């Protein structure tokens, strides 16, 4: 075959366009993660407080985001937000909002799990030196919980990054959407290009996600080793 199709990747502006799409993808993931993790931390702490109503509401929030698939969440917000709330956000921002709320829900469960697994003695020792509730969280519980939850948080990050692949569905010009456009423009002339374009996107996701999950696995193993001696 004279033309393997890989040339399409580097033809004209194609490569730059793909990188541009990748930047959009990363920007959305980044904003969603920062906001989602911060909100999740707060919600996780709130879920360890005694207030039953608050705990129930936050639990329902979590379960809703757990049960509804992310694809459906995207459409819910994309279609319904402008109609009912009259809020007309661009698709990028809808995506950030959905991913941030979803991340926050998952994060709140991770944080809560870590907080309640800090041994009770630690809490009592803190009380015994006169710390108030806020100081107890600030100096004892949250720092200890954070080290417990880091691997789970990194895994959540990799999930969020993978989920950005769904942006295409609400017509955000992410890396996949750009790739699809390029494929469509070239499929007649160079049918093999589809292999290279999607291959490139495949590799891009792997390159971003693999180091993160490798890091999470390693930290988890180290922690287990420390617990076991």
């Amino acid at each position, binding site marked *: 075959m004279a033309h393997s199709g890989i040339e399409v990747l580097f033809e004209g502006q194609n490569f730059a366009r793909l990188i541009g799409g990748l930047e959009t993808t990363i920007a959305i993931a980044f904003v969603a993660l920062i906001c989602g993790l911060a909100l999740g931390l707060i919600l996780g702490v709130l879920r360890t407080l005694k207030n039953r109503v608050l705990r129930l509401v936050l639990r329902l929030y979590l379960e809703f985001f757990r049960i509804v698939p992310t694809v459906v969440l995207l459409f819910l917000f994309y279609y319904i937000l402008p109609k009912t709330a009259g809020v007309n956000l661009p698709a990028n921002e809808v995506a950030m909002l959905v991913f941030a709320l979803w991340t926050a829900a998952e994060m709140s469960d991770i944080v809560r799990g870590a907080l309640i697994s800090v041994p009770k*003695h630690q809490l009592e020792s803190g009380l015994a030196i006169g710390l108030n509730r806020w100081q107890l969280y600030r100096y004892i519980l949250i720092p200890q919980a954070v080290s417990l939850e880091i691997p789970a948080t990194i895994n959540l990050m990799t999930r969020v990054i993978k989920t950005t692949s769904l942006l295409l569905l609400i017509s955000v010009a992410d890396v996949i959407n750009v790739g699809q456009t390029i494929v469509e423009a070239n499929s007649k002339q160079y049918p093999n290009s589809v292999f290279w374009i999607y291959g490139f996107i495949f590799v891009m996701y792997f390159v971003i996600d693999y180091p993160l999950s490798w890091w999470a696995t390693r930290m988890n193993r180290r922690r287990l080793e420390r617990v076991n001696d």
Partner: protein
Amino acid sequence: MTKQIYSVSNLEKYYQKQHVLHDITFSIDEGEVVVLLGPSGSGKSTLIRTLNGLEPYQSGVLKFKGQEIQPDEKGWRKLRQQIGMVFQSYDLFPNLTVMENILLGPTKVQKQPRDIAQAEAKRLLEVVGLSEYANVYPRQLSGGQKQRIAIIRALALKPELMLFDEVTASLDPEMVRGVLNIISRLAKQDKMTMIVVTHEMNFAKRIADRVLFLENGELLETTAGTQFFENPQTDRAKEFLESMDF
């Protein structure tokens, strides 16, 4: 005249239906060392934890230096700065260095200036012979070292009363002595007022000004230290002493 530090009258406590503390009344004066003895499950640990607000109780009056204690979170928090407590499981905070563990109470709770608190912490570390460990994390210490740090973490708040709850129970035998010596020195030299729950009978004999003997949540006798070990007043205490090795 000696000053009364802590008094307990008619304290009652239940876990669901189980009656764990039954009409407990006693008091402790300044500089006095009171040892709580009794078989396991007698309520010693529950009693000492109640004195620091870690266990709720159903009725009775607790007074610190003559003032009745309000059993709410705010009341206890203020009091806990004046009552130091050390637990069986040492419970240093693993996320903080030794020095940070000691400074947490003085700087964050009592808002002491950091340099003053730090100077005091250094002095205390020297007293227990652990100066060179100021900047390590608890996991690098042995059990005995951790427990010594836990003691000075409590002392750093300059408490007027110290509570020791089975502080040597989870230590290896060779580490017990060092920890007990520190507590003895605190009692004899520094005249610290303290309430001690322990299974170490020789140690109890050495430091107790007074012994409270508990069984099944009841306070069976309150006897001067030397007298208790030579001539206990109740048969139950006699049997208890006979069953323990010295």
